[in-house]
């Protein structure tokens, strides 16, 4: 079945093409068709997994070349797919979670005027992500990378009639493009250093890299990863991306797009390994982002924006894990996060569906009695996110913190604080949305079954996902991935104690959320009034966006205005129009010759003849 690996990206791509070409005619079956292609991809992925497991562990790395794509000079970039444990785990996560989100969307987007186009984009999104994770060279990976960026733009701005949505789409595209440019430079540098862009050639030779080159390549690649994965300082597009339909947010946050950065760092680990500086930067970016996004999440009043900052924070954990060399743990957290974040987003979608799109938690509350199942599933997702034992998030986050502890005490401590923040903000979101007295007029109701089944399956995944990796040494997924773990050489607290502390902090965060927002012992509405400045700072993500607006966007706009209205309109247009005016003037003077009087022409003719005659005679 490994020979049929091309089917995995080809199926969703085919679906996208069919829906784009004949969307109008396929309107009735668009959702079903799109879901089917992704579902079939998942099945193919499972069959390939079976074949791969049948191979001995050391030869679980198969490549299949489909055709030569670019072959110019020394540059060889074939369309070559790579099947190894890492890419297969990504394939299964993307297609599995993606499939559930497709099914959910069938009901959520029902009746939308652009229903077929939505599923075309969704399919294209999955196809691009699969290309990204299956590529066996950096150029093909970049194709998927940009494809993902394009689809995120199309889907975030799907309801482009709303200006906010159109702007958010553009912002996502432009901000990630900044990172993509760095990544492209990194790929250029890889080619000029190694003379090849194929993974096998590059990673095989990565050990002998000069540290400076390794650092340069790593940091450029990290730039791309930071943009795509919404890490500091290029995270600002993700909270705004909440303008898209909720299932799109689920897809972006759980299966596609933001996990691409983590995948890239893990995939390019041999290069990062050659540069301790770069690895350190990865870890620091990750942990600072985790802390920053956790803080910002507390200040959000919009349920989806809480989840958005939560994603930024969780991806930060993945970067932290990758930065301290615990690659398998990073991927494990990626998988676990895919489950519980998709679950949280889809339940948030249920809320949105039930309340006519009301997502402001200040106007929600008291949904639990009306929507018991949604409430329960959101709670499961929230507990997993907070890292409470038996849920998937507990195991992965625990292992990340243990790895961080081995990597450095400060990393661990900051990560631990972020755990507490996580517990607090998700408890706040849960209680404000579902508990207490209703602060709205709507009559919420549970969604139809087609939306409930994906939620149910994701809930099962969230609870059982932890079984994949009970510990960093013996976990199923870790053993399968075989990515070489960082040594747990550091003394001090044992892993058990680290786990207990992390869980304690998470529980404390949850308890604080409970105490502030539901117990009635604290008047949280009064607190909001009292600490207005703090609340606003958190709500605006510590003003990072405003700083960019002031120091990047405004100067850029001023420069554009200068080149548009002064350079273009005055200088360039002036030169062109001036030239035109000169000739128009000459023509206006010259056309007087054309009198229309035959006799004056005859005079000119005669004079000309006489002059020619004189010249000829004069020369002889």
């Amino acid at each position, binding site marked *: 079945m490994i020979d049929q690996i091309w089917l995995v990206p080809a199926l969703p791509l085919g679906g996208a093409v069919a829906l784009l070409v004949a969307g109008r005619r396929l309107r009735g079956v668009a959702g079903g068709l799109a879901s089917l292609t992704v579902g079939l991809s998942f099945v193919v992925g499972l069959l390939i997994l079976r074949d791969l497991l049948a191979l001995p562990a050391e030869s679980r790395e198969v490549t299949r070349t489909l055709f030569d794509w670019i072959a110019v000079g020394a540059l060889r970039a074939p369309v070559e797919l790579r099947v190894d444990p890492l890419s297969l785990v990504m394939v299964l996560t993307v297609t599995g979670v993606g499939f559930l989100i497709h099914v959910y969307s069938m009901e959520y987007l029902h009746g939308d005027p652009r229903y077929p186009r939505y599923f075309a984009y969704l399919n294209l999104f999955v196809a691009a992500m699969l290309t990204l994770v299956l590529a066996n060279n950096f150029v093909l990976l970049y194709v998927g990378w940009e494809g993902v960026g394009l689809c995120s733009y199309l889907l975030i701005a799907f309801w482009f009639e709303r200006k906010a949505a159109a702007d958010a789409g553009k912002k996502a595209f432009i901000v990630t493009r900044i990172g993509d440019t760095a990544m492209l430079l990194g790929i250029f540098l890889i080619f000029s250093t190694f003379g090849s862009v194929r993974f096998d050639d590059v990673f095989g030779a990565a050990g002998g890299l000069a540290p400076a080159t390794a650092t340069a390549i790593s940091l450029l690649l990290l730039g791309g990863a930071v943009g795509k994965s919404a890490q500091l300082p290029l995270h600002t597009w993700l909270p705004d991306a909440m303008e898209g339909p909720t299932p799109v947010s689920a897809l972006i946050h759980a299966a596609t797009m933001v996990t691409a950065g983590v995948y890239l760092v893990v995939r390019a680990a041999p290069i990062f390994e050659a540069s301790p500086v770069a690895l350190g930067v990865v870890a620091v970016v990750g942990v600072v982002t985790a802390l920053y996004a956790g803080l910002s999440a507390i200040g959000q009043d919009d349920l989806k924006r809480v989840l958005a900052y939560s994603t930024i924070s969780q991806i930060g954990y993945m970067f932290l894990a990758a930065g301290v060399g615990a690659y398998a743990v990073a991927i494990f957290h990626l998988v676990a996060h895919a489950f519980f974040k998709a679950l949280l987003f889809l339940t948030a979608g249920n809320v949105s569906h039930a309340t006519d799109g009301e997502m402001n938690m200040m106007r929600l509350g008291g949904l639990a009695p009306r929507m018991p199942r949604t409430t329960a599933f959101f709670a499961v997702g929230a507990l997993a996110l907070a890292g409470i034992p038996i849920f998937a998030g507990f195991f992965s986050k625990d292992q990340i913190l243990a790895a961080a502890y081995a990597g450095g005490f400060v990393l661990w401590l900051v990560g631990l604080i972020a755990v507490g923040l996580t517990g607090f903000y998700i408890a706040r979101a849960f209680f404000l949305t579902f508990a207490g007295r209703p602060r709205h007029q709507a009559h919420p109701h549970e969604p139809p079954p087609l939306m409930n089944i994906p939620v149910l399956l994701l809930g099962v995944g969230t609870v059982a996902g932890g079984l994949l990796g009970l510990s960093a040494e013996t976990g199923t997924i870790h053993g399968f991935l075989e990515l070489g773990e960082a040594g747990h050489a550091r003394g001090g607290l044992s892993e058990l104690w680290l786990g207990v502390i992390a869980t304690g902090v998470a529980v404390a965060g949850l308890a604080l959320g409970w105490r502030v927002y539901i117990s009635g012992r604290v008047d949280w509405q009064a607190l909001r009034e009292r600490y207005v400045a703090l609340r606003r700072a958190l709500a605006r993500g510590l003003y990072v966006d405003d700083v960019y607006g002031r120091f990047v966007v405004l100067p850029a706009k001023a420069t554009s205005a200068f080149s548009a209205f002064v350079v273009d309109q005055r200088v360039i247009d002036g030169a062109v129009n001036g030239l035109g005016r000169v000739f128009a003037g000459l023509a206006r003077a010259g056309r*007087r010759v054309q009198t*229309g009087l035959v006799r004056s022409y005859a005079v000119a003719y005669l004079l000309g003849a006489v002059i020619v005659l004189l010249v000829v005679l004069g020369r002889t």
Partner: protein
Amino acid sequence: MRTPIAYFLLLSAVLFTIGTVGVLVRRNALVIFMSIELQLNAVNLSLIAFSRHLGQVDGQVLAFFSMVVAAAEVVVGLAIIVSIFRRRVSANVDDVNLLRW
């Protein structure tokens, strides 16, 4: 004794000048046309004078060509003048000045 060639050339030059002046100063298309014929024939005259003077037949051949062309030109030119006259009830060339700035 032969008439010297200078006499022929002088007559030719006088005729040509009359034709040229006629083309330039007259307004009636028919008169201009006649003046052009005068110029052509002045040239023909000098051609034949040279032909006789040099004892070569080339000049006469050229004169015949010139006469054939002149005849064809008269046919076309008169047709144009007639059709302009039908349209405008005038043969004044200064009235035909549509192709001006």
